[in-house]
Each structure stands twice: as C-alpha cells, then as structure tokens.
C-alpha cells in the first residue's frame, strides 16, 4: 500500500490488505496515520480489524505440546553416545 495520492478516506477494499501490517506495527508512519484516520470513521474496517486481531490470539492459545520424557531420554543417550 503506497498510493500517497489516495484521499485520506481511503478505499476499504485496498486498506484491508494492509491490516496485518497495521496490527503488527510494521506499516510506515505515514501509512499508519492514514489507517488511524480511516479507522476512526469506518466501522466496517474497524470491525474487520477487530475480527482479524482475534485470530493470532486464538492461535496462540493452542500452545500445548510437550516432548515425552522417554523421547527426551533417548535423545540424551544419543548425545552422550551411551
């Protein structure tokens, strides 16, 4: 997204493509400001961003998985050559 001649209101269809970058803080400052302004006046994009931001949180919640103790022991034996 680098179209400086676009009006501040922006076009939702284009801005949704930059939402992850906005969420992750990787947009350049001027584009972030454009996005801030747009979001202030557009419930569609605000709600889209809200829904999008729910995804990484839900994904992070899936963290479980531990390595079984016997596997760990096997690896240690492999390392020590015993």
């Amino acid at each position, binding site marked *: 997204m680098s179209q400086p001649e676009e009006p501040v209101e922006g*076009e*939702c*269809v*284009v801005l*949704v*493509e930059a*939402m*992850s*970058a906005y969420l992750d803080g*990787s947009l350049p400052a001027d584009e972030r400001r454009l996005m801030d302004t747009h979001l202030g006046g*557009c*419930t*569609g*994009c*605000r*709600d*889209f*961003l*809200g*829904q*999008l*931001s*729910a*995804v*990484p*949180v*839900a*994904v*992070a*919640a*899936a*963290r*479980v*998985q*531990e*390595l*079984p103790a016997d*596997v*760990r022991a*096997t*690896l*240690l034996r*492999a*390392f*020590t050559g015993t």
Partner: protein
Amino acid sequence: MNATRVDAVPVGRTQDDELLAALRAGDEQAFAGLVDRHAASMLRLAMVYTPSRAVAEEAVQETWLIVIRSLDAFEGRSTLKTWIFGILVNCARGRGVRERRTVPFASFAKSELAIDEPVVSRSRFRPDDAAFEPGHWASPPRRRGDSPEWSLASAETSALVRRAADRLPPMQRVVLVMRDLEEWTPDEVCATLEISLGHQAVLLHRARARIRTDLERELDDVPA
C-alpha cells in the same frame, strides 16, 4: 561469515558460540537445555506438516539426531535456532508427503503467492466505478471482533480456528504457526524458510484473513 553484515555481533550469536562450544565438548546439560528450550515448539511446527503426533515426534527425534551428527560441520552462518528449525521443517515435510521430493520453500511460496487472493471477497465492496463511495464496504462484517461470539475463551471458537488453520495452504500454515503460535520475529521466519520479508508478510496476512473468513462464516453465518 557474510562480509556485508555489519553491526556488532548480536547477543544471541555470542550465546550461540558458547553453547556451540559446550555442545561440541559433549556437555550433556547444555544439550538437555537446548532440547528443553525448543522441543515443544518443534513438535508444534512438525505438526503443521504431519497431523499425526507420533510422526511429528519422529521428525523431531530425527532432527536432533541430525543436529548431533552435524554439530562439528555447523558453520555459524545462521543462528543455532534457525539452523535447527530449518532441519526440522525439512524432516517434517519429508515425512508429511507421500513423495519425498523436497521443493525449496521459496518456490513453494512463489507458487502460492502467484495466485491472487484478496483477503476479503471483492464482492463485499462497492465497485471501483460506483458513483458513491467506490471501494467502500458494501457488506461489512456483522459483528465486532470483541463480541461474545468471537470470544477466544470459547472452546468452540478455538476448535474452529484449529480446523481452519489445518485447511490452510502449507506456506500460509507454517508462517502462521511460526509468527502467531511460536511468536518468532519476521527475520527468524525468513531465515529459516529462506523467503523474503515481503512474501512472509503476505503469507501471514492471507492465513489470518482466511481464518477470519472461516470464523465469520461459522459464527456470523456470512458467506465468503
């Protein structure tokens, strides 16, 4: 070492050197610590490619055995972590597909990215030539992201997200897991998969957006 890399040696790299020396000297505690630090994450990543936990565990074991064998040959061009996980994703991929061809990730990424995939169907926006508000939402999301239906505490939502993630194309899935589950930096993802920052960013956004679309369909009854 890459001569164009400037800056002081990053802290991680110094710790790597000490750890590497300890491992090469046969320091069991150093190895156990390394396994403990990464094993759970390796298992989760392996399961991106092989939903069977047993096969994923095999891939993790195989990876560590390769690491042990290759310690002396490791040249330190990447961090230990990047190196280990690079081996892991290749082991996991090798076990996850019927044919054991290995296509470089960069090629995989390119072919996935070659397909134009808007994160929201264009039909949900007003056409570019509309007289009034071209390009704006015509069918906006029906619910706010913080509405109870989108609550992440719900087991139903978590299950939906997991199922949606399982349906993702492979490169989107691995980038999503690395960034949003394992919380790697973009640079770590790019170094392990050998893809560009730009590709990594697009893959992540598409992955999240597909899951959002699936959730919207299930929770809010909105067709894609």
